[in-house]
């Protein structure tokens, strides 16, 4: 299907609709990020046979708020000799790029309110994945600029590591996606979800691709075992060692938002997005109404995302950090060839199928 998107034709209603959606997504991701910090601590505690934060509110669920307030009231320190503008720009960029991914993820099926069909996707652009790639590749600027502007060798080293790590893993990630795209034949995320509704989830068609994507996603979000840029014990926190107060908060937040959104992307790409497993969504929609369906779908999507966020944390508290050369070796010598192989095999299979060679 060819989607003729006329990009800049906006009418007022659509504008409002999108604005609301944007606000929702941003708040949503912020809340999720906030609670990810809480979840992280809790999960860590459970895995280490501890209890975790439990003082602020019942079971400590107000802990993120407390943290936020604390960060707000911390003293702001800008190191001397650093470029103040860049020093502030760094975390802002990190936050911005982290947020931007949410724009193309389909959060649910179309809903019907006030006599309008409202898509629960901010921008259904037909190059959704490429957009995500673009934004992700920009993510490194926040780290690099911040690291450089700190005027600190450890920060700079962290920034360098981040840059090389992200660039290195982007390759394998891209190629693993290409193999997926060969199947789907579209770059639009909405399309992909719709395809997965009717067919198998993509994970079953691209297990290796998913694995590679997963590993790369860990690296791109600077999560353990790939958290070299902020390696606490070698680089004293890496690129954000000079940061304090809310600017540090931005960096930390952006990491969790990244985690959330990359989980969302993985779910959308490989696990059917908002598709409810084992249920025919269309039939369900007819029986309970579109809006309810969208709500359930949103919940399902959220559940899947939570699983992934849990996975992120689970891995973090299991696997130790890589050494730098190990990281590079893994990226270039293992993942890249593997993803190429995956792509080749996928291509060959598609060709075989197209030529009706049954096997």
């Amino acid at each position, binding site marked *: 299907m060819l989607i003729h998107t006329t990009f800049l034709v906006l009418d007022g209603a659509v504008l409002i609709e999108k604005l609301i959606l944007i606000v929702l997504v941003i708040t949503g991701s912020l809340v999720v990020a906030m609670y990810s910090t809480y979840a992280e601590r809790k999960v860590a505690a*459970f*895995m280490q*046979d501890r209890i975790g934060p439990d003082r602020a509110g019942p079971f400590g669920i107000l802990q993120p708020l407390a943290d936020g307030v604390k960060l707000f009231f911390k003293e702001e320190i800008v190191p001397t000799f650093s470029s103040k503008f860049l020093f502030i720009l760094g975390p802002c960029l990190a936050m911005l790029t982290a947020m931007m991914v949410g724009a193309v993820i389909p959060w649910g099926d179309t809903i019907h309110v006030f006599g309008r069909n409202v898509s629960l996707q901010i921008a259904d652009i037909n190059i959704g994945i490429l957009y995500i790639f673009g934004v992700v590749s920009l993510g490194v600027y926040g780290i690099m600029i911040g690291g450089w502007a700190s005027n600190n060798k450890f920060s700079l080293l962290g920034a360098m590591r981040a840059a090389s790590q992200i660039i290195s893993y982007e390759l394998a990630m891209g190629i693993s996606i290409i193999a997926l795209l060969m199947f789907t034949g579209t770059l639009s995320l909405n399309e992909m979800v719709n395809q997965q509704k009717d067919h198998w989830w993509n994970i079953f068609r691209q297990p290796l691709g998913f694995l590679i994507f997963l590993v790369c996603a860990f690296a791109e979000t600077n999560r353990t075992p790939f958290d070299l840029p902020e390696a606490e014990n070698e680089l004293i926190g890496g690129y954000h060692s000079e940061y304090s107060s809310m600017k540090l908060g931005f960096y930390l937040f952006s990491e969790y938002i990244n985690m959330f959104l990359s989980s969302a992307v993985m779910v959308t790409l490989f696990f059917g997005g908002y598709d409810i497993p084992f249920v025919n969504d269309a039939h369900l929609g007819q029986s309970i109404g579109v809006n309810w369906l969208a709500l359930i779908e949103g919940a399902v999507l959220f559940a899947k995302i939570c699983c992934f966020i849990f996975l992120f944390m*689970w891995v973090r508290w*299991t*696997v130790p950090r890589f050494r730098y050369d190990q990281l590079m070796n893994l990226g270039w010598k293992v993942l890249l060839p593997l993803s190429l192989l995956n792509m080749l095999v996928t291509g060959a299979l598609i060709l075989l199928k197209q030529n009706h060679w049954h096997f």
Partner: protein
Amino acid sequence: MEPLTNRIEHVSRKQMSFWEKIYLPAVLKGMGITFRHMFKKPPTIKYPEKKRVFSPVFRGLQILNRDAEGRENCTACGLCAVACPAEAITMEAAERKAGEEHLYREEKYAAKYEINMLRCIFCGLCEEACPKDAVYLSETVAQANFARKGFIYGKEDLLIPHPLKDPEAFAKAKGSRIKHPEGHGNEH
């Protein structure tokens, strides 16, 4: 050489097999372990509400002891300061004047007695060295403080409450610690 312990671990230098090289099984195994731990009961004790019983050999903050009449035992002999491996104890001695017999048991007493709690390692050697049973490691722990100065405990911090005037506080400060459960010989 004969290994000193039986906990020695021999490092294996053999080439890893392919299965080992891809690491994934090991990672999954590790994840399995961590996941299992999620369902274990946390051994955490919620501290302010719940406290754990100290072990019988616990050694807490020092106190300067008094005898049953409420007189200070310490005679400022300085043996504790000599014995202290962390050199945490300083004192100044003074002569007992007439009319102060109800305060000090001996003719000489410590006019000033300080223990730097930042240095103290709670080894208990002062207690062992004291011939007068004046220094005694209780069951309390050092309180948090904002300044370093606050950790230099003077005589007023260390001295045990008066056993006659405030017997409860005295008992509490003294605690139920059993000194040397197995015994070492110089008990009175």
